[in-house]
């Protein structure tokens, strides 16, 4: 099994560093610089997986990002990583990988029975078969299909790796470091442009690493090394390997994923595993090269059948033979280059060329090396199950329609070359309307939509000389436009072998009476017969054919299958390829891990966390926190073994009996200044604001233009032209934008400035019958009597040497004050309040007690002002001015808003005075009515009234005004509860509002 396929020397791997790794539990050795694929092939391993649909044996087809087969599940540092291409995964010490899509193992896979049932799995099989009975899909079919399908399993554990995002701006972003990328980057860099050169692979140089060319007096590889080291030394250039530009988005924003640690046994400390770069480029050069196209023949998916360019890459970069008895099947000169490499390393290949009498320097060299060349020959069928063992080959007629003289020859690999397909994905993503180039039988970019330029073989240019010349020119031209500098470069002389024209032939006809599977899409198991069937069944648009057959829909995005699929459709349809058109390329070019996309914005970092200046006091005093928007607020302060219910009851009770203090820093605050400030407030709020005296606060409600309540809060007149507005915690940002909208766009004539001051002030609400005593001791010099500081009054005071603002406003319904100090003094204020309040039994209270206090007072809040209610619904109609106009007023006369039985907020008490009513319960007249039971309304908020020691809820119900005293039912289907209730006034405690004025 572990026959050695490694050459004694050659390649770019580091033979002095041996690396051990495991594949499917078995231990192997490779060298530093190997990929998992090259190391496995060196060990003679060609069976790496099973195919998606038929579970046919799968080997290696390519040597890089084009690989459709060799997808493995990685185990790295105790973390699993699915969907990894073995051809891209660099080898590291201790690497562990296993095959996917096979059970119990890759050698013996039960699913392979699908292969023999192949005729029952035609295109659209799933759509046709699992339609009936309907209920079976969800419970029977889907789970089974899911289990059988897929390229690996994601971990269900939290990913402990770190992923980062980075934003970068540059003059030129160059995707691909082959000859065109290097030349354009070099020219642009010399002109002083800020350049980013990205290479997907670990090695720079692209095709220069494997081609036999001379640039100046250096080999292609030496030249690429020289250019890269020069670029690296320049401060205006960022050079990145293992970095794939995978998406071209709007306005020249490109996204690149940099694989920083995937090639290492474990991620180094303080280093991310991967980094996503968001790059805004002034100009983009796409030098993404081209991918070899397969030729299509019977069983062309057998392990050992692979691209001839891949065979050459394994030889030249890794010093690995993909076989010792190679058959090379080509329609162009590229196959000969691979054959020459084999021959030079002592292996005798056989070349089958579909052409009749091709002639070129390369072919001459092959002939001179005595390579066995058969012209007008094709492979009809690959034989062997888990590895190619022989091939049926045949003579093909000049019109390419008939085959004759079929003979079997022994071989252990078949290297195919059906010419080259430019990699146009990025150009297409950018919106480039591509065009079909008859000469190369492929699409190339045409009119750029954004600032993108495609160079080299990605643009269909296959000679090095022209590639270098145009790339130096373009790099110079594009950068000169930006930097206004020009540093002319002499294009070096190039020595390369000239090629002859390729043959347009791509698919070998079937021998009479044979029905071999000839695959187009190697990852999704789509064969020629599937496309034929789809067309017979009436599918015409290439987009439909794609979705029906899944051609090109696998994770390789059809890199090796798209064009052959198009050729087939156009042949059957008797159209030319450009009429058929290609399907849309969408980002990402190849799979990107979810971790990289999410970046650092996970868990606690998914949104900012805002903390009040008193946060650490709360923490020290056993606060249990709750998320309030992006703020963390104390929900309750735990004493002993208390639970939420007990603690909040204790805290609320203490406010009603003594005094409590609540952190209200999170309230939105907006500073409003200017001669027209009062006029602005008068237009924004529903009530009148022009006559509010200095030193007084007022409660206000603001609407949206559609009449729905947007927010409420108090605004205080600090001085003649200066107001302090408060908003709810949740709406702070929206209210500011709302004010800015009207000031900037609708009423620019108003001379007013607004600015958020939320973070400038720390706030404490001191509430309860003893709050005046606390306040008096905090501000001994201040007249805090009911006359000196009346309800809705405002004073400035001196709190032990710091300036404080005191607002006599109340949310709890008790006598209450809100004290604001500059944020830095927040903790000082809080500790002073606690210290002074001690003799009055002051206790801090959290949001849960705050809710209880406001609910039993019937004060509406977020759960009633929920974006669906108008002032009337919240019993706020008394605040709606009849005299003046304001935002949203015109909507309030809408028919639905003035109906006599319009919904209104009410209080709800369970008849047994014991059962708490779940929030969200429906209010219904008859609990036994037939479903759907007509609902009268819903419970918006519930609490345990500390005043009456029984449950109390607020509800918004139809005709609420006339429902007081009615006996109804609260039903919660979720909690499976039906509770008989009585409707009461929403003002359950202190209905006349005497306490706040006391």
């Amino acid at each position, binding site marked *: 099994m572990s026959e050695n396929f490694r050459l004694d020397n050659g390649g770019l791997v580091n033979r002095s560093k041996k690396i051990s790794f495991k594949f499917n539990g078995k231990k192997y050795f490779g060298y530093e610089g190997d990929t998992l694929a090259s190391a496995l092939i060196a060990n003679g391993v060609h069976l790496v997986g099973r195919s998606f649909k038929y579970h046919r044996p799968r080997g290696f087809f390519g040597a890089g990002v084009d690989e459709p087969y060799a997808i493995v599940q990685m185990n790295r540092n105790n973390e699993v990583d699915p969907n990894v291409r073995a051809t891209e995964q660099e080898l590291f010490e201790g690497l562990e990988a296993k095959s996917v899509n096979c059970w119990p193992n890759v050698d013996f896979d039960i699913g392979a029975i699908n292969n023999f049932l192949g005729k029952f799995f035609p295109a659209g099989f799933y759509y046709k078969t699992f339609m009936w009975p309907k209920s079976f899909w969800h419970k029977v079919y889907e789970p089974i299909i899911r289990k059988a399908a897929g390229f690996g399993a994601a971990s269900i554990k939290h990913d402990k790796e770190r992923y980062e995002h980075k934003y970068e701006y540059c003059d030129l972003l160059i995707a691909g470091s082959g000859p065109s990328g290097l030349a354009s980057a070099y020219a642009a860099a010399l002109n002083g442009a800020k350049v980013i050169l990205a290479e997907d692979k670990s090695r720079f140089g692209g095709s220069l690493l494997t081609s036999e060319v001379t640039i100046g007096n250096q080999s292609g590889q030496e030249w690429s090394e020289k250019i890269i080291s020069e670029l690296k030394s320049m401060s205006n250039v960022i050079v990145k390997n293992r970095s794939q530009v995978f998406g071209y988005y709007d306005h020249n924003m490109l996204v690149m994923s940099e694989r920083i640690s995937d090639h290492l046994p474990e991620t180094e400390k303080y280093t991310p595993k991967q980094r996503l770069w968001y790059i805004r480029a002034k100009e983009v050069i796409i030098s993404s090269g081209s991918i070899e196209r397969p030729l299509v023949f019977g069983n062309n998916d057998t392990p050992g059948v692979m691209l001839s360019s891949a065979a050459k890459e394994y030889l030249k970069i890794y010093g690995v033979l993909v076989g010792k008895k190679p058959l090379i099947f080509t329609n162009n000169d590229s196959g000969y280059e691979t054959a020459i490499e084999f021959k030079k390393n002592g292996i005798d290949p056989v070349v089958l060329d579909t052409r009749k009498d091709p002639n070129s320097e390369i072919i001459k060299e092959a002939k001179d090396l005595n390579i066995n060349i058969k012209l007008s020959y094709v492979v009809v069928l690959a034989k062997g199950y888990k590895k190619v063992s022989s091939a049926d080959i045949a003579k093909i007629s000049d019109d390419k329609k008939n085959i004759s003289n079929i003979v079997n020859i022994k071989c252990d690999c078949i290297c195919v070359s059906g010419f080259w397909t430019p990699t146009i994905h990025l150009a297409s993503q950018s919106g480039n309307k591509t065009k079909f180039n008859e000469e190369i039988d492929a699409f190339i970019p045409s009119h750029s939509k954004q600032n993108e330029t495609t160079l080299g073989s990605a643009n269909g240019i296959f000679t090095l000389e022209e590639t270098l010349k145009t790339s130096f020119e373009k790099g110079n031209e594009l950068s000169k436009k930006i930097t206004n500098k020009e540093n002319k470069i002499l294009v070096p002389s190039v020595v390369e072998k000239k090629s002859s024209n390729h043959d347009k032939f791509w698919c070998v006809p079937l021998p009479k009476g044979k029905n071999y599977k000839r695959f187009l899409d190697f990852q999704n198991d789509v064969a020629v017969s599937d496309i034929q069937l789809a067309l017979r069944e009436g599918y015409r648009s290439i987009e439909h054919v794609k979705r029906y057959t899944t051609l090109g829909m696998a994770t390789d995005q059809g890199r090796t299958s798209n064009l052959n699929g198009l050729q087939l459709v156009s042949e059957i349809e008797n159209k030319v390829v450009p009429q058929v058109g290609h399907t849309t390329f969408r980002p990402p070019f190849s799979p990107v891990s979810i971790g990289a996309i999410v970046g650092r914005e996970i868990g606690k970092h998914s949104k900012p966390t805002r903390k009040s200046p008193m946060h650490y006091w709360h923490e020290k005093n056993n606060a249990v926190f709750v998320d309030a928007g992006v703020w963390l607020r104390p929900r309750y302060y735990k004493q002993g073994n208390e639970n939420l219910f007990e603690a909040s009851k204790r805290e609320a009770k203490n406010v009603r009996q003594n005094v409590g203090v609540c952190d209200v820093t999170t309230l939105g605050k907006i500073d409003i200044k200017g001669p027209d400030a009062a006029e602005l407030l008068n237009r924004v709020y529903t009530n009148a604001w022009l006559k509010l005296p200095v030193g007084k606060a007022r409660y206000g409600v603001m609407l949206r*233009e559609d009449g729905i309540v947007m927010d409420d809060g108090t605004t205080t007149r600090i001085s003649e032209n200066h107001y302090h507005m408060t908003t709810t915690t949740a709406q702070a940002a929206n209210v500011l934008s709302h004010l*800015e909208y009207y000031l900037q*766009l609708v009423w620019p004539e108003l001379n007013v400035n607004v600015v958020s001051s939320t973070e400038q002030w720390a706030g404490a609400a001191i509430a309860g019958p003893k709050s005046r005593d606390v306040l008096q001791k905090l501000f001994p010099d201040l007249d805090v009597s009911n006359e000196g500081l009346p309800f809705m009054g405002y004073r400035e005071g001196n709190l032990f040497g710091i300036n404080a603002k005191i607002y006599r406003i109340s949310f709890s319904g008790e006598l209450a004050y809100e004290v604001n100090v500059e944020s830095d003094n927040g903790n000082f204020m809080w500790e002073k309040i606690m210290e002074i309040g001690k003799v009055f039994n002051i206790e801090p209270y959290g949001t849960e007690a705050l809710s209880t206090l406001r609910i039993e007072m019937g004060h509406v809040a977020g759960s009633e002002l929920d974006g669906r209610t108008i002032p009337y619904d919240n019993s706020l109609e008394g605040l709606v001015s009849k005299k003046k106009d304001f935002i949203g007023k015109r*909507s309030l006369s809408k028919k639905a808003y003035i109906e006599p039985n319009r919904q209104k907020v009410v209080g709800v008490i369970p008849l047994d005075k014991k059962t708490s009513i779940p929030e969200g319960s429906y209010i219904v007249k008859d609990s036994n009515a037939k479903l759907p039971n007509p609902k009268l309304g819903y419970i918006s908020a519930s609490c345990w009234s500390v005043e009456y020691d029984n449950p109390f809820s607020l509800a918004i119900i139809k005709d609420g005004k006339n429902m007081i005293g009615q006996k109804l039912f609260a039903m919660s289907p979720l909690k499976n509860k039906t509770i008989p209730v009585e409707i009461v006034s929403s003002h359950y405690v202190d209905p006349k509002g005497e306490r706040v004025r006391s």
Partner: protein
Amino acid sequence: MLYIKCPHCGLRSQNEFSYGGDATVKRPELNKEISDQEWDNFVYLRKSPRGKHLELWQHISGCRQWIKVERDTLTHEIFTTLKSNEEL
């Protein structure tokens, strides 16, 4: 991600802005008698053009100014950006 030229701050990425809808809608004057139909048109009715559209954006993470952006809703091309008090 769009690249929007704030007339006050220069070119900035879309994530610094928030979208504000159709910029051609004019709010009826305060205290003016208008029909239900006119009011409803102002509050609810918006065109959803395929192509050029003058829209409002607010540079919330920048200068906080509301600006007007003429954008192609199909291609995302941005033709001009204007200050709040400028007209096309």
